[in-house]
């Protein structure tokens, strides 16, 4: 019983972090109708940047979001204006090819520069533990959880109640009408790409205890985020959050309770089940004005 409970807590922590990682992909998809196939590799890039900064300057990783998130924001802007905008009206496969290529290039560069060894980035809280429901958890992971919850809440609030959020939803729901209301679709898309990628930089430095750095992690996290995007229903942040937590819990409990590593298969089983029985995903179940 304690095992299941601790798995549940760990799954919720992991799932919330995954939801934040995917939320950027969801926003990008909603406005541009492009799946960012480089999302996981950009996460890897942000995590290796943290590792590098840590090695070079010995600063505690807790401070790095303040540097890495703005850097990733600028990188996202550059990616949009440099690569995505020029091909946005081309065939949709062009963007997929471009982003997959970028993903492979980033992964290869990381492998060349940092080698194939596993790395972790600890912070001041990694060695401190708190007990929740009879099990000890690293405080660092709970900090990552707290940051993810805060960021997701802020994002949901901004989408719902700010002029920026209204413009983003307008572009997502009817591009022509948004244009005729004077909303610059290109600006909305650019900010969405930048913000979606900045969110990776905001959380990446804190994931040392949750995600191990390997140069091949990029594509794996892209696929996991894609599963969450689809299970969540592609068009709602709330859907992504629910799906992220669901996938986190299913995977963690699966690894705990099933023999071997069959547990890691469960997210994909869930994907198939959702596609067959509820193709609209979580958001179709929660449909209401948003």
């Amino acid at each position: 019983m304690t095992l299941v409970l601790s798995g549940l807590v760990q799954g919720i922590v992991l799932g919330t972090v995954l939801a934040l990682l995917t939320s950027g992909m969801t926003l990008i998809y909603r406005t541009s109708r492009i799946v960012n196939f480089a999302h996981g590799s950009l996460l890897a890039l942000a995590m290796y940047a943290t590792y590098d900064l840590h090695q070079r300057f010995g600063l505690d990783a807790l401070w790095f979001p303040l540097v890495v998130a703005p850097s990733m924001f600028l990188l996202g802007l550059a990616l949009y204006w440099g690569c995505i905008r020029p091909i946005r009206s081309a065939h949709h496969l062009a963007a997929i090819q471009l982003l997959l290529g970028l993903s492979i290039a980033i992964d290869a560069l990381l492998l060349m520069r940092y080698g194939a060894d596993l790395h972790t980035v600890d912070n001041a809280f990694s060695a401190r533990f708190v007990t929740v429901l009879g099990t000890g958890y690293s405080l660092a992971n709970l900090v990552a959880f707290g940051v993810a919850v805060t960021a997701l809440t802020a994002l949901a609030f901004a989408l719902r109640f700010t002029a920026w959020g209204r413009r983003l939803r307008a572009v997502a729901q009817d591009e022509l009408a948004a244009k005729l209301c004077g909303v610059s679709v290109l600006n909305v898309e650019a900010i969405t790409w930048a913000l979606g990628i900045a969110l990776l930089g905001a959380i990446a430095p804190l994931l040392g205890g949750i995600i191990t750095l390997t140069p091949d992690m990029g594509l794996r996290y892209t696929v996991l985020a894609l599963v969450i995007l689809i299970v969540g229903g592609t068009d709602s942040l709330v859907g992504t959050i629910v799906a992220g937590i669901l996938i986190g819990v299913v995977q963690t409990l699966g690894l705990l309770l099933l023999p071997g590593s069959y547990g890691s298969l469960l997210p994909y089983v869930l994907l198939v089940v959702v596609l067959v029985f509820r193709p609209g995903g979580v958001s179709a179940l929660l449909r209401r004005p948003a």
Partner: protein
Amino acid sequence: MLELRALGAGYGKVPVLFDVSLRVERGEAVALLGSNNAGKTTLLRAISGLVRTTSGAILLDGADITGFAYERIVRLGVAHIPEGRHVFPEMTVEDNLLVGATRLAGGDRRRRLREIFEQFPLLEQLRRRAAGSLSGGQQQTMVIARALMSRPALLLADEPSVGLSPVAIDALFDVFAALRRDGTTIVLAEQNAAFSLDLCDRGYVLQRGRITLADDGAQLRSAAGALHEAYLA
């Protein structure tokens, strides 16, 4: 207010408009008549900056705005009601209206919303409803109100009466008649000739991308033969 000089426009390599010249004075309501495929929608979209022009010029208050980006044209006070309603279906009526006020300063948007709610009390009752759940007539009213949120000097309306019930069309007519009385300049593209001729001072007939008749309402009406021909073309 608005002047088109020998305007040509089209999509990609397909030309749609040829040598279109017209004038709209401040405070006028001008009808744009013509069958499907005559180029009415393309003409309005060219004015709004959604369709690239290939030749000629568009002047707004005497200033050349040819080739301006759509968001810049909205900022100059041109509002465009697209054909087919185009509500933001999963946003509330209030959020739809606020997006319409994008060109206003942040603090001014709420003030404008209150004014619009005074003008359209029905929308205030529906303010928390998802726009997609409204009836056709309610959606059309909301889309007009959304266009008015920007306090436009020039209103372009593309087939606003299409798909509405006769009762809703009467209500729509009253809305446009009130706009006219308030001095809003209107360009109305309609297949419903009775609707637009009752509302407008004069009109142009567009046929296969060219202006084939320019006249005032009474003459347009009496020239029913020519109009009929235009519709059959």
